[in-house]
């Protein structure tokens, strides 16, 4: 499946949006967290500032999100991970409500109850979880529901290469293959699970090679490239929509930032990120679009400006929104 010009431009714009989102968040996240405005003796205070708590950013990992979500509609389900922004943005989750959620505001997706690892947008069938390996079982459920309801909806579960060794992954791959569910499993290999590199965690090189253990196709995307992801995902999504069952895709990608913001990254070779950034997929797609005459400089500038503006607007919206009332904490345990 070849990407049309529209798709390429959509992917490009979404990648710009994601990147700007993550870079903005990286800055905003620091607000209020540094000396001298924190407890004496601390270098950083995770619980302070407008966006407290953990913060896992996906700068560098845009291709996997846009290449997959380019094939999806609102009816299709995406279940993301603890590092969920790129998936959410690519899936079309409204930036305002998503950002407000991370600011803990009542206008947030979860009225401030969920936070950054728990973004729920039932209208667009997006959710995520802070538990490693937990994205796969509910994606099977969405796939099963589609089948039972006679729809051609598909479900996508993203998970990291570190997650690949969780029991939930195995159980879900087997169940999906057994029941021929319309699910696409995407392993996002960014080489690291916090401080643990893939080869210290996984006994074989490619997680995609585990597909044969379930009798489903295993597809390898060897480069952090949105077009390659788009093509691989296209085959898998079509297959699922046709009723021919699940696929497992592994995508090599790059984590530019720490595992979470504030990560000292003592475990990481000093020059690793600089080298990775030389291969920035956004710059490469821009060059490709320009070379192919599909985007001129003015168009590029317009796209980039639009994408950035959406991000700025979302952060402004989040800042301007009100906090929930403390007592609201008691609501919504049950629907």
């Amino acid at each position, binding site marked *: 499946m070849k990407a049309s010009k529209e798709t390429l431009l959509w992917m490009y714009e979404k990648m710009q949006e994601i990147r700007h989102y993550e870079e903005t968040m990286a800055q905003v996240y620091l607000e209020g967290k540094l000396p001298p405005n924190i407890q004496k003796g601390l270098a950083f205070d995770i619980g302070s500032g407008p966006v407290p708590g953990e913060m896992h950013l996906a700068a560098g990992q845009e291709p996997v999100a846009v290449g997959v979500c380019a094939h999806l509609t609102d009816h299709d389900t995406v279940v993301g991970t603890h590092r969920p922004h790129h998936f959410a943005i690519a899936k079309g989750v409204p930036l305002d409500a998503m950002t407000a959620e991370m600011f803990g505001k009542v206008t947030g*997706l979860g*009225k401030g109850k*969920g936070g950054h690892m728990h973004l729920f947008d039932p209208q667009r069938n997006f959710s995520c979880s802070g538990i490693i390996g937990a994205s796969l079982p*509910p994606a099977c459920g969405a796939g099963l*529901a589609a089948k039972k309801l006679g729809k051609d909806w598909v479900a996508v579960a993203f998970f990291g290469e570190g997650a690949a060794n969780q*029991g*939930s992954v195995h159980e879900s791959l087997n169940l999906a293959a057994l029941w021929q569910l319309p699910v696409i499993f995407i392993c996002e290999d960014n080489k690291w699970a916090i401080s643990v590199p893939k080869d210290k965690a996984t006994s074989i090189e490619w997680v995609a090679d585990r597909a044969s253990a379930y009798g489903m196709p295993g597809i390898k995307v060897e480069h952090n490239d949105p077009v390659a992801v788009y093509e691989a995902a296209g085959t898998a999504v079509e297959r699922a929509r046709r009723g021919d069952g699940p696929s497992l895709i592994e995508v090599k990608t790059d984590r530019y930032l720490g595992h979470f913001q504030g990560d000292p990254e003592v475990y990481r070779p000093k020059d690793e990120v600089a080298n990775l950034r030389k291969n920035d997929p956004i710059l490469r797609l821009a060059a490709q679009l320009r070379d192919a005459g599909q985007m001129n400089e003015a168009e590029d500038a317009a796209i980039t400006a639009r994408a950035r503006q959406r991000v700025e607007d979302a952060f402004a919206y989040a800042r301007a929104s009100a906090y929930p009332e403390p007592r609201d904490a008691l609501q*919504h345990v049950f*629907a």
Partner: protein
Amino acid sequence: MNSTRKLTMAQAISEAIGQEMERDPTVFVMGEDIGKYGGIFGATGGLLDRFGPDRIMDTPISETAFIGTATGAAAAGMRPIAELMFVDFFGVCMDQIYNHLAKNTYMAGGNLKLPVVLTTAIGGGYNDAAQHSQCLYATFAHMPGLKVVVPSNAYDAKGLMIQAIRDDNPVMFMYHKGIMGLPWMAYYEGSSGEVPEEAYTIPFGEAKVVRPGSDLTIVTLSQMVQKSLLAADELAKQGVNAEVLDLRTLVPLDRAAVLKSVAKTGRLLIADEDYLGFGLTGEIAAIVAENLDTVALKSPIKRLAVPNVPIPYSRPLEQFVIPQISHIVDAAQQIMKTRVTEGAYA
């Protein structure tokens, strides 16, 4: 026209599921051996023949996958019922139950409905040892986000099951094996009984006085209700008039019913088959202890439960750790003999 027949609790449960499946095409059941086998404890007996394998789905032994599948299917508009064969197996799938099914609605700010019923078998008494005999309902009740239903008889089980299936929230439906009325396990006769054919519901959070009394309150649930009623008969012979309160659901918990009964009797025995420490008996005792400004106790509270040991296999050992009718009688008599100290007004 209300017509009733005598059903076992297993029959009442499977009837409730069947009726709801007929009413609502989004209801379906998943679990191990729930199809041809009809559920190891009969909770899905006969359903495969009526509804076929697309709606009565045997699963691989993959509790994490299929319970997570229930969550995902519920989010997408279905109303799954998933069976965890024994509650003792919760540890292989608790993350999906507890970090996801139970919390997602809250984390979504109420914007997400997850109408899932998890059925599971609880309880001992037939020597199935430490990994197949627990109750563990306090573990589920401790953690917010799950409604917890623990019926003691066929009538309640049917009404509570229909209520559970129609509830837009996750419900743990925990049935004690020793009151299911199985042809291969001894059970308490009182747990089978007349059950209307028509569908009906019983609201959650309403405890039931199953035996009124004046001398002491026995707060209890599940199979222990049947034991407590027999103990109350014995106590009556001994001149003690016990009130027996069947909690029926732990979440929501009918605190008012506990307080009302204890206000009347002034004495409280809690009879439980879960572990003693950090569990149900503590919670019930605390409800009274928090309200001593309005509720007066004549005697210290007493708690009967499994004394913080795993369930042992051997019969004399198991009978010792799981509260028996005679233990209830003895504990009640001890309560009658003890008085709270007057030092309270020092």
